[in-house]
């Protein structure tokens, strides 16, 4: 583990990732995916992670989830180093939304069922069931309680999956391209649904997407990762992704759903991010990165050496 070279206290923000490197062994030598990634996220933010294919946005999410281990660097959530997956973080995937062998209701109650003792579960079953049905009603799923996931549409499955994660009241909700496989109409409804849930619960959400419009529309902050940039390491260096663009695009607590996709400012923001995430004809130099978000910070590149 690296020390905190930035001098920032990891407890200042809910999520603190500093000097994070992720290197995968490959047939043609090790491949660096994340290359000195620094990120601080305040409680209650809705952060979208965007970037070109293979930029490691899902990798960063998996590191925060604890599903994978960073090669070097440090990640903290609520001041504590990230550990293997546990109920502090909820996850919603694009696929594998629900457990196929459980009904919708069974899926939603699963979190409580797993964490309560046998006796406690039977004592509180009715109360939990009522809560689950209430949650499901907010997702228009109250008529599908006893259906199995394969009997639901893609949008219904994803709504149930969000509800399932929220039932456990995680500190952070991680979402990995959750709406990527949905048709545009369903997708728009899901965005509205998610914003409503976010406003109701005030959860910190980290949302991986490759759709810039979705990112800017939903979030309070857009973080772009890219492996296409230049720095002092010269042209031949094999670079992993860094944060190349970090913008505030909305206010926490201020209904982001009031954003209009027709607003010229909205389009301008998208363009501002887009020039960094499309595989650029012009590779931006380190110093040209657009890191205007106040929580954004730098650490010197140490080449990912283990310390």
């Amino acid at each position: 583990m690296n020390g905190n070279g930035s001098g920032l206290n990891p407890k200042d923000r809910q999520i603190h990732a500093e000097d994070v490197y992720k290197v995968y062994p490959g047939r043609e030598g090790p491949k660096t995916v994340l290359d000195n990634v620094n990120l601080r996220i305040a409680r209650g933010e809705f952060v979208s992670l965007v970037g070109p294919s293979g930029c490691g946005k899902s990798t960063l999410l998996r590191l925060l989830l604890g599903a994978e281990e960073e090669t070097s660097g440090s990640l903290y959530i609520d001041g504590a180093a990230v550990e293997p997956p546990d109920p502090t973080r909820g996850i919603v995937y694009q696929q594998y939304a629900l457990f196929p062998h459980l009904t919708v209701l069974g899926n939603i109650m699963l979190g409580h069922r797993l964490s309560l003792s046998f006796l406690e579960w039977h004592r509180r079953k009715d109360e939990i069931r009522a809560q689950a049905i209430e949650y499901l009603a907010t997702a228009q799923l109250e008529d599908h309680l006893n259906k199995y996931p394969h009997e639901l549409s893609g949008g219904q499955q994803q709504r149930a999956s969000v509800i399932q994660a929220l039932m456990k009241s995680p500190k952070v909700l991680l979402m990995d391209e959750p709406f990527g496989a949905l048709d545009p109409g369903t997708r728009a409804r899901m965005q509205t649904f998610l914003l409503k849930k976010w406003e109701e619960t005030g959860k910190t959400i980290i949302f991986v997407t490759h759709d810039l419009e979705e990112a800017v529309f939903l979030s309070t902050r857009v973080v772009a990762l890219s492996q296409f940039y230049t720095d002092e390491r010269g042209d031949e260096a094999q670079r992993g992704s860094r944060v190349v663009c970090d913008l505030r695009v909305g206010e926490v607590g201020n209904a982001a759903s009031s954003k209009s996709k027709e607003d010229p400012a909205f389009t301008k923001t998208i363009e501002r991010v887009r020039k960094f995430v499309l595989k650029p004809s012009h590779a931006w130099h380190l110093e040209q990165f657009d890191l205007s978000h106040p929580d954004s910070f730098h650490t010197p590149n140490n080449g990912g050496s283990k310390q």
Partner: protein
Amino acid sequence: MRIKAKLLGIHASPPLWLKSLYVVLPFVLVIAGYALASYFYLEDNPQGKLIPSFGKMWAYFWGFATELDTRSDTYLLWADTATSLIRFGTGLLYAAVVGLLLGLNVAMFPGFRYLVLPGVIALSFVPVVTMLPILLLAVGIGEEAKILFIFLGLVFIITRDMYAAATNVAPELKIKALTLGSSQLALAYRIVLPMILPKLLETVRLNLGLVWVCLIVGEGIAADSGLGYRIFLFKRNSEMAGIIPYTIWITLLAACLYQLLGVVSEVRYPWRYERGIIARSLVAIPELVFQAFRGRQS
């Protein structure tokens, strides 16, 4: 477009009556061929035992089913069937439980995997029939030997398949379970286990044939009751009139069991199947016949 082909080619589309005929024809041919062979054979040597007539076989079979055997005070067919099915079921049950638990733990816990998997793989290469002499010497010729034989024949196959099934459960779902508050043990036994149970049933179902082989061979070599014992006894007396009906009886039992497990799987695990399949299998007619009639619905 009219498809003219009635038998050959991938577009062949015979009408219902012809499909039914195709299904029945091989059976009719075999039975008729046998009847003819038997007729000519018996004409040449009326005392011959090799190709008995249907009447003789039926009489023989009926005798075993309905006449009390004075020596053992049982109806032999039913006594044999019961004994065999109990051995069959016991061996199968042990193998299923042990194989499921081994496979699941091997898949979920890397430490356990390194410890156990190589041994399981090594043992799975031992041809099961070669174990029989060792078993007979080691545990004698009692019930244990035959049940253990079935168990050994099946357990490594089930372990291997359950290992594969548990490994194939999407890692996303495993991670998700952990984020929902599952402990590591609960992940194995309360999430992954129920998800691979249908696969267990399927593995057992597809390997029923092997179980029958183990049962019949075990009984044929060391037993004084059971269907396998009876068949080998007939063989010692060159009594084809007993062997053939017993073989057909065992085949029928095997087919029924196979169908039954299919139905159980579909009724018990509806989440694995699209709607409508349950109704199909409850009809429980051999699948070929079903195929022949499916054209009508679609």
